[in-house]
């Protein structure tokens, strides 16, 4: 079976220890977490986690079942199975001597991202996008010398029905 990337959306009761239970489940069973993201939902006391992980069908089935088994889990959805939107926000601090600054700004423009901090030697860029876009811009900026990078990890949501 082939390992694929899956994005799981997990709704949990916002009790102390939920995050460590979820993280512990992954580490204790040897599952892989690529990113894990938590935030409140509209409903009080309920949080939403977006977990990106890789595994073959068998492993993903185990992960989903084990997540459902946690006493505080309200719902688990595998967004890979449905049409969904995915976004990640990344801050990239890149070398920017005067001679290359224009070039970098052009890339920022093409990718529709924002410069959020400037100094003599560096630019800090904020990018939001799906995995493809993030990968592409990191690639483009690599040759200038990336000094630091901070990523939020993926957040995702099922698309509204269109038909």
């Amino acid at each position, binding site marked *: 079976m082939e390992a694929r990337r899956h994005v799981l959306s997990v709704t949990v009761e916002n009790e*102390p*220890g939920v995050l*460590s*239970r979820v993280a512990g489940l992954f580490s204790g069973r040897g599952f892989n977490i690529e990113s894990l993201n938590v935030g409140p939902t509209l409903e009080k006391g309920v949080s939403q986690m977006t977990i990106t992980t890789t595994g073959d069908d068998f492993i993903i089935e185990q992960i989903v*079942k*084990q997540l*459902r088994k946690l*006493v*505080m889990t*309200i719902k688990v959805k595998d967004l890979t199975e449905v049409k969904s939107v995915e976004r990640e926000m990344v801050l990239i601090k890149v070398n920017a001597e005067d001679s290359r600054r224009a070039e970098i700004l052009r890339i920022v423009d093409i990718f529709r991202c924002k410069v959020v901090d400037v100094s003599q030697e560096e630019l800090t860029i904020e990018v939001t996008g799906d995995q493809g876009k993030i990968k592409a811009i990191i690639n483009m900026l690599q040759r200038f010398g990336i000094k630091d990078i901070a990523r939020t990890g993926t957040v995702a949501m099922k698309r509204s029905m269109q038909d």
Partner: protein
Amino acid sequence: MELTGAQILLECLKREGVDVLFGFPGGAVIDIYDELPNHPLKHVLVRHEQGAIHAADGYARATGKAGVCLVTSGPGATNTVTGIATAYMDSIPVVIFTGQVPTPLIGNDAFQEVDIVGITRPCTKHNYLVKDVRDLAMTIRRAFYLARSGRPGPVLVDLPKDVQQAVTEFVYPNDEQIRMRSYNPTVKPNKRQLKKVVDLVRQAEKPVIYAGGGVISAEASEDLTWLAKRLNIPVTATLMGLGCFPADDPLWLGMLGMHGTYAANRAIQDSDLIMAVGARFDDRVTGKIAEFAPKAKLVHVDIDPTSIQKNVTVDVPIVAECGQALKGLRELVEKEGESLNNDEARIGWAKQTVDWELEHPLRYAPAKAGEPIKPQFVVEKIYELTKGEAIITTEVGQNQMWAAQFYGFTKPRTFITSGGLGTMGYGFPAAIGAQMAFPDKLVIDVAGDGSIQMNIQELATAVCHNLPVKIVILNNGYLGMVRQWQELFYERNYCATCMDAQPDFVRLAESYGAAGYRVEREEDVEVVLKEAFAVDKPAIVDVRVSKEENVYPMVPAGKSLTEMLLV
């Protein structure tokens, strides 16, 4: 009514129907102990917190009720971890109350502070730190609800000292209030899936029922037995499932797996339909997974969806409480009438399994005159003398396997052993728990000389509470099971398995105020066991058995069930 946290705890325990509490005090629970004399609860003071948790677990296994233990913070709490993991692996309902430093000190490395909620997260079904006395009653009720419902398991409640002292209006939450929308175990089976099972049974020529501890915890033995007999299907069980089907029935194949019978393992490997009920395809059961039951369709009934499809691919998965599923099947089978077991093939199959039993029964080479006692002989004698009416607990190792093999269990909840974790030191405190629940029953811990030394201090507990538990040590002077592996797979390099410098178990027992006996000749076994069983106090029977006896049959780890080493 305004009550303190400590009072609320005891009030809740009373309403949960708890009558025994196994515990050990300390500064962080002294407020609860201060209240204890005002309540009808029996408290069993153990000598080590591991004893408390195992005793609570043994009580739970013997009765089907939740076991409860109470310990102090820090070292008291950490001493229970092995017992919590033991209960977790075997899905036993226990509720553990631990004292905690006062809430303002939490996180400050205060005296006797430990993050027990963090430590036990991976080995509890759920756990709680109560920060506000107003949440206490609700938390306790939920703890019991979680421990008992769905797939049972241990739940821990950590109680800071100031919460125990704080005062609030006591309101006992009702059933509706303790429900959680995030927790809804599926207990009812899917009807269509049950029908599929009936269809498979109709087609099957070589079916086998493979039962596990889930049958016992769901009190489903009767329905299982009915179905097996009505459909003429041979039954095997895991270590945890022993007693769920009467061992004296012709359809009984014996235990399966690593130390299972030839007939059981052979039947599994040859069968065309396996109905797994409340069992989880543990590696000690399946052997090499790729070669497990190659010809069989698999039906798997389990309350825990994560157990299904975890180790093997299942044809008909049924997520349900075993009792409900078996009842559902029973109804369908009753409706179907005779059409289900008129098959000659089926009768031939049952006969075939009996032939296998006759071909390779569980056996051992009996001791010749002057030779040391055979451990299997001792277990057979215990069975003979108790007629299968005793509650047997075990330690872990060869003693455990011989007890499983040579004692004929006919009733559920009469065999109490640490299956999933294999915890040495479990059997004796568990026996104390069982004896506490059934003061009039004969409770026997079949022990090894290694394991019994892990919680021997509980002799004081047994003596103090007049619990006439019997410990029969199959004393081979070795950590026998490990020695067996060294013999078979490590060229007899008996490194660190010889138990030199043993205590004199007879005098040890006597020094605690229990009775002690030593048996060195086979002809004395019966007389001494009789005397020990009759004496009205705890007793140790130190039986010197042949030192290098091995447990057979044996499927070496990682081999397939067909590759058994026979005697």
